[in-house]
């Protein structure tokens, strides 16, 4: 069951989107995704259904999160309160709506 690479929406016609995965296009159903999807958006796809719209600014945030995880791991002792708070904020509210 291929979970698919995130793809870019080319066209939306009713509940069906044409999504481009690096040059290969597939039709994907929008019945399940919980946000309106427009051409240019990126979506996560599973067995022919878009299950999540991926906000593009999330990518930068995810990479920043990974940097923080590295820093935390390199620390031997307990984290400082402020770093813990920062991390919690990134994790819980992750999806910018």
């Amino acid at each position: 069951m291929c979970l698919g690479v995130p793809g870019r929406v080319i066209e939306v016609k009713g509940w069906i989107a044409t999504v481009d995965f690096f040059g290969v296009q597939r039709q994907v159903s929008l019945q399940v995704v919980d946000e309106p999807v427009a051409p240019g958006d990126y979506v996560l796809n599973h067995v022919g259904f878009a299950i999540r719209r991926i906000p593009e600014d999330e990518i930068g945030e995810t990479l920043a999160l990974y940097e923080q995880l590295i820093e935390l791991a390199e620390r031997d002792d307990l984290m400082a309160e402020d770093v813990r708070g920062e991390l919690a904020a990134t994790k819980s509210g992750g999806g910018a709506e």
Partner: protein
Amino acid sequence: MSRDGRRIEMRHGAGGPAMRELVGSLFARGAPMGIEGGVGLGALDDGAALRLGERWLVFTTDGHVIDPPFFPGGDIGRLAVCGAVNDLAVMGATDVLGLSLAVVVEEGYAHADLERIQASIEAACREADTRVLTGDTKVMRRGEIDGVVLTTSAIGLVREGGDPVRDAGLRPEDEILVTGTIGDHGMAVMTRRHDLSVGAGDGELLSDVAPLNGLIAAALAAGGPAVVAMKDPTRGGVASALHEMAQKSGVGVVLEEERLPVRPAVRAACELLGIDPLQVANEGKALLGVRPEASDAVLAALHAHPLGKHARRIGRCTATRVGSLILDTGFGRRLVTESEGELLPRIC
């Protein structure tokens, strides 16, 4: 009366270990490795090499059952010519004297389709600077065969003073070169079968089917005897071809994933279908094993030829892990296996 209840399965035609086992234990059983220093059936190489006076004559045969017979970038006719020409080319026989063509066609098959196929055969022969010398035609009743099956045999000569290039000549430190992008043919056929619509331009998935004798001649002119092994990665892809070369040569091979030339559309299609590009058939590519001191010259010769623009150095041979193919992914290493069965049935 045999009590052997075994049946032939699709994997016996997949180009991988099951097929080699079948051929080795049945069709090639007892066959000599070579006759008077040549290359015989027992070597299970891309062709056989026989001494003809001062020159080496190479002889090969190929069956073609591809489905669909017309695919993006080519058809069964082009494939039949290029398959045989390329088998000769990777043995070093780049001067193709001619082909035989046996056609078995189903009752009811469209004459217009045979015309298209013949036009492709003629065009491919012109590109390879060769011709069909002889042939045979048979018709089977509707339903007894699927469409059309072509069998081509070819004879060619190795350049004067040259020896046949086997697939068993690799040594540790030798470098592995590929003449261009991998996975094109198999994925082009897959998109037809799985109804993946493809974008225009660079996103298009086309078979790479092409005659390689001109390209290989250029590589051999540059590298001479430093080109120690060659094979064309058809069914089973680069993975099968390199496994065979490594096993026969008694070396291990390490490939670097970052260096593999894969077109973005092929990579995307592979991701979507969960297929490894290394296991996908190619019909216009060759793998060359080259001594390290000559690889720059050979690479330059490949780049100078229209069919070799994307040639790359993709790996090297090792003395350890003999017979294994390892991929360095950039993160870590893993083994590359041959696909067990028919990843892509009737791909050639």
